[in-house]
């Protein structure tokens, strides 16, 4: 399990694929920016499931 928190406070946790999908959508829909999978996972922290 991974967790990532956006500077705007939005947060998500899940598998690598779930986190990437959720943050990709958030970054584009709420901030109009695109993030790569590598960028997203580089900022994700492992958490207990």
């Amino acid at each position, binding site marked *: 399990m991974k967790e990532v928190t956006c500077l705007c*406070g939005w947060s998500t946790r899940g598998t690598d694929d779930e986190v990437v999908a959720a943050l990709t959508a958030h970054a584009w829909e709420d901030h109009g920016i695109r993030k790569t999978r590598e960028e997203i996972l580089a900022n994700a922290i492992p958490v207990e499931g």
Partner: protein
Amino acid sequence: MEHPERAPLVEIVPALSNVAWAPDIVVQSIEPLFVYLGPDGPRHLRPIHAPSLRLGMRPDQQPGTVVVQAAARYGLTPLLVHSTSWRFDAGRVVLTYVAAVAPPGPEPNENLADEPVERAALARGDAFAPPPTIDVAQVLEHAFRHLAWLVKDDAEVRAALPDWVTFLSAYEPEPFRAFGAPPG
């Protein structure tokens, strides 16, 4: 009948917890509350898409350092960071840090909403249970009451927040407020 001097020295009882101590068990949510003192009173710099910021913490990190680093990410200058409360929320322990920061510049970070801090009634539980709900306004109220006590009791806090002393005097220290006026 057992002689007192032959009584077992150690009584074996069931384990108090079923979770072993481990270096990888950490508080997973640090909640920094960025506040500054504006001309008209305290202001909360809230993340625009959440009531408060929740940060994960790796086992090799200190929570205060996490808060200071987070403040830097928003271009804020911390004056003091201090843990003021914790609560259990959605299966996680949330450790709250109030982060008193210098007033932001003319172009504050776009991810933060600048809002006044209003007074709030404290969330109260009973003798064995926490309040059923706690919102961020109540956490901030508790934090300011905590600082109001510290600014009188702790020289380091007073030195870090010289401009806050007058404002914080409006927040009667929590240990005395709860008991009300003395009898008689």
